[in-house]
């Protein structure tokens, strides 16, 4: 299973990456796309929506199941990946390239705490 070491992981199978500009990019893991099977529909959060860590904010729907996606950090949604929504199979092809949305944290220190509470690659892989 592909779990890049530069990412943080939620037990609910999202990955999060802190960008240089302080925003956090979010997607689903390779394990999640594999378990879901062919993905046919993405429901992404509206840009401008304010979310709390752990809040449901997107849906990934495959041929066989719908899966809620939770925000790994608190903040404002500043971007949603329309290209992925237009081609949901891109998440199956590369779950780490086909990100879902980007969050601008409300506060950097809170974000650091929230990211610190996520799993590293090895710890996440151990949960699978």
């Amino acid at each position, binding site marked *: 299973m592909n779990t890049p070491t530069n990412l943080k992981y939620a037990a609910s199978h999202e990955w999060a990456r802190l960008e240089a500009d302080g925003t956090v990019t979010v997607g689903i893991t390779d394990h999640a796309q594999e378990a879901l*099977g062919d993905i046919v*529909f993405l*429901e992404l959060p509206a840009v401008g929506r304010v979310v709390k860590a752990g809040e449901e904010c997107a849906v990934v729907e495959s*041929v*066989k199941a*719908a899966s809620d996606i939770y925000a790994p950090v608190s903040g404002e949604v500043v971007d949603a990946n329309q290209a992925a929504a237009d081609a949901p199979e891109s998440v*199956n092809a590369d779950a780490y390239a086909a990100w879902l949305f980007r969050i601008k944290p409300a506060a950097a220190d809170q974000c650091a705490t929230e990211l610190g509470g996520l799993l590293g690659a090895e710890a996440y892989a151990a949960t699978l």
Partner: protein
Amino acid sequence: MLLRTPLYESHLAAGAKMVDFSGWEMPIHYGSQIEEHHAVRRDAGMFDVSHMCALDLVGPDARGYLRRLLANDVAKLTMPGKALYSCMLDETGGVIDDLIVYFFTPERYRIVVNAGTTDKDIDWMRACLGGVSGGFNATLMVRRRGNDDAVTMIALQGPDAHERRRTGVDAVAMIAVQGPRARERFWTAFPDSRAATATLENFQAAEFTSAQGDWLVARTGYTGEDGFEVTVPAEAAADVWATLLAAGVKPCGLGARDTLRLEAGMNLYGQDMDESVTPFEVGLKWTVDLKDPAREFIGKSALATRQARNLFAGLLLLDRGGLRAHQKVITPQGEGETTSGSFSPSLNQSIALARLPLGVALGSEVEVVIRDKRLKAGVVKPTFVRNGKSLI
């Protein structure tokens, strides 16, 4: 311990993701369920259906027994190899299982039942062999085997039962080759079979002997496409699979099988129907044969008085979202429920089979509650796609 079909190793070699299906370790897909779905709609795909149970029924009373056991009437089968789809009902008219029966002679039939219901079916069939009037002189033989490599022999009854228990019968494997090019690719793979199978009509089968033993090739399926269901000796299964693969037939898993049958509007036993409903309530009135007033099949008297409680219909989601089984449907006539639902790869939208209140009109709009939202759906005839074409 899950049971494995004779094709288990072939699935692993083809990169299958295996899952538990009714106690059988079966391929759900070999990479992409959607690609497998399209292969069957556009070219040819193959499914291992050896988890389903093939049964042979032989004996002087075989025909009379089936005329009592099944809601459809095997008396209409007169040409050797001709097949019939039927429900097997309990005394209340509830559906115990749906099955296909093949006629060879009035004293010899092949029956194929669902995997998840096999034990229940055999218990019922055995009880009915005993029957009310001294029983039927017929023997039921299981042609499937599981892990232990032993041919399963249950439900033996009749004068030659002991003999057969001692000698046993050979186990078979079944491969469904489906799609517009399925027959052509099958003949490429097995040119010698062409003479025996070229003129088969729908729901007709041919028995013949090949270098790999006795084969039964039937023009039947569960996808809404043309094709064959091929029954071969268990020992030959892996070779047959490999030969079909080399002829360009794509391995397809149970995931694609489900979206294909759903698009074709075919019920899945245990999901769209069970003992709680009659054939009339799940769109299968055409399979209940009431023409012969003298024929007393099991469940007949109940069907005469039991009113249908719902309309069986298809739903086509008009918004984006996912239809699944057991979602609530809101109509002007009251609430209904989906029994199967999925994204349809052929139509690129969500479809479902549903039980709706009587009086809901085809062509009307209803709402489906999906994840706390109400989304609009159109009520349609429960056949969405046939032979590669949308019927919507």
